[in-house]
């Protein structure tokens, strides 16, 4: 078991990680870095799921499986995203998010 660490600590970690991810998403221009920020966000969510599962409903494995599936989804998402990024790079010779503004207005 986890000893004396209360659930809140996990939540704090995940919250901070989440918002750090958000911060990265908002401030970085590079598409790949933004993708990494998104991975951070997903990861923080995973932590939440797992922690809740462990502390509040240890008799089930729902959170656990949820995380599992999120990891799968994250993998898929990363694959597609990177494919798109590479495509964008080919077309724009850049992966700066601000330069990709063909669809503006």
């Amino acid at each position: 078991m986890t000893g004396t660490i209360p659930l809140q600590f996990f939540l704090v970690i995940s919250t901070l990680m989440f918002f750090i991810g958000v911060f990265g998403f908002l401030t970085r221009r590079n598409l790949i870095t933004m993708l990494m920020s998104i991975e951070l966000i997903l990861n923080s969510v995973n932590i939440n799921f797992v922690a809740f599962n462990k502390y509040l409903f240890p008799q089930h494995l729902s959170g656990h499986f949820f995380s599992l599936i999120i990891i799968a989804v994250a993998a898929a998402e990363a694959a597609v995203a990177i494919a798109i990024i590479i495509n964008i790079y080919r077309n724009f010779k850049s992966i700066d998010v601000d330069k990709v503004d063909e669809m503006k207005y």
Partner: protein
Amino acid sequence: MTDYSYTILIPLVPLAVFLFIGLTGHKMKPIVSGLIGTAGLAFGAILAYITAISYFWGGHEGAGYASIKAFEIPWLHVTKNLTISLGSLIDPISVMMLVVITTVSLMVHIYSLGYMKGEKGFHRFFAFLSLFSFSMLGLVLATNIFQMYIFWELVGVSSFLLIGFYYEKPSAVAASKKAFIVTRFADLGFLIGILMLSFNTQTFDFQTLVSQTGPAISQPGGAAFMGLSVLTWSLIFIFMGGAGKSAMFPLHIWLPDAMEGPTPVSALIHAATMVVAGVYLVARLFPVYALGAPDALTVVAWVGGISSLFAAVIACTQTDIKRVLAYSTMSQIGYMMLALGVSGYGGHDGLGFMAANFHLFTHAMFKALLFLGAGAVIHAVHNNDMSGMGGLRKYLPWTHATFLIACITIAGIPPLSGFFSKDEILVAAFHHNPVLFYIEYAVAGLTAFYMFRLYYSIFWGKETHYHHTPHEAPLVMIIPLLILAFGSIFAGFLPFEELVTSDGLPFELHTEWAIAIPSVLIALVGITVATIMYRKVTAIPDKIAGSVSHLYKWSYHKFYMDEVYLFVTKKIIFRFISRPIAWFDRHVVDGTMNGIAGVTQFASFNIRNLQSGKVQQYAYVFITGALVLVFIFVFLW
């Protein structure tokens, strides 16, 4: 009772002629269309004479002449009680007018065959003449006031078309426009008057209106506005229409300009027939005026009196012969209006009424004669300014003779017709209103003066050299002159006091020599003065003009009435109403609409910037928005 329903043909035949010539005239030879028009009118004239003879001398039931509704069809139902009908009403004045109109019109038609020969638009001219004859005849036969209004407008339009006959001449176009708009303005008054009258009496019909037990006379109503009853006001408004058509002061300004039309037109429309429509209108409603609203009648009298003096003064200084005649017409119509204004109802009190109609009749003859004579002169010298004329009596003997007869007639020298009718008017005025009576005395003198001024300037005076020798008019133009001269001489012997009276009953007429003799003397004085001044070329006219230079100048410029009107229309209405409205519409009203569109566009242009295509910006907005919502729902709810 005789069946007069055939009278409806009198106007309808000219209408048919109008349509026929108007639609097919350009395909036929000009002279053919002229002959068709003349024939149509001749037919109308014959019918009119038959009507007159059988009406006046064909024996009548009871005392006096009844008013007979010979024909009537409903034209439009406007309200439950009010129906506009078209038909023909036969009574002394309408029969008299039928005779006048068809006679003068026929003369003018014949005359025009010669006068208008070779003009472009010959058939058009005859088509319009027929249209005018139709309208005018329809007007006098009107059974109800609305029919009269309908034909009143038609008359106005025919006048417009005929004045603007020479449509390539800007002055003619301007004159026709002016004539139409001024009379139209007056007609607005007429219309309002009709609306008021018909609303209060619930009828348009003349017979109901003038009947002494009818709603108009038996219930005149109390004072409504400025101390006058509704009936009085409505009659004043109606008179405004009449004043416009009859060129009474201050709505007279269109008449002199209307002389831009061909001279036969001036003779027919602007001397004999249309301009007396106002007189006819008042005469038609006379019982209502006399019995229901004497105040309105006073207005009529004064307007007539002032107009006659005003016009006579102006006529003394004009140099365009047709304009002199135009002002003379205005002055004579002023006489007729005055006569109506000073008349009472019934018996000898109705002398003025009789005199007005009498004068209308004689005036139609001699004024048409004058205009046609002037036309013959203009035809001969191709000019209508009297300064370019003189000594024409040698070249134009027939014209000279008939013109002289007309001048004597209008001056009121016995035993020509003008004397009789004018005398009755003076008598009526004397009994009623001395001020007006003296004005009319003065006008009689002025009339004699300016007519003979005109006469001498044309036929005597200096010997002018013409480009080519003036030649007498063709026979087709002389014959109408002779016929009208005959009418001018002998029309005075018609027993009008038995035929056309205010109540249909004949009355005894006394000649009041105390009034007649001075008036003849005054006329003779006028003639003498004119003879001295204008028979030979002398310096007297210039001296006199110099001594009263202000009056002369004012009179020469027609008392600046045109300028006043121009100021009002061009400066005030066009500049200060119409133009600002046009501006206001484009810039304020439309500007508001465009402004709304502009604001929308501005807003959308700015809102568009929110759609920047910057993912991070969207994310930022999204996240802060989500946070705010969370904050609200978690902490504030």
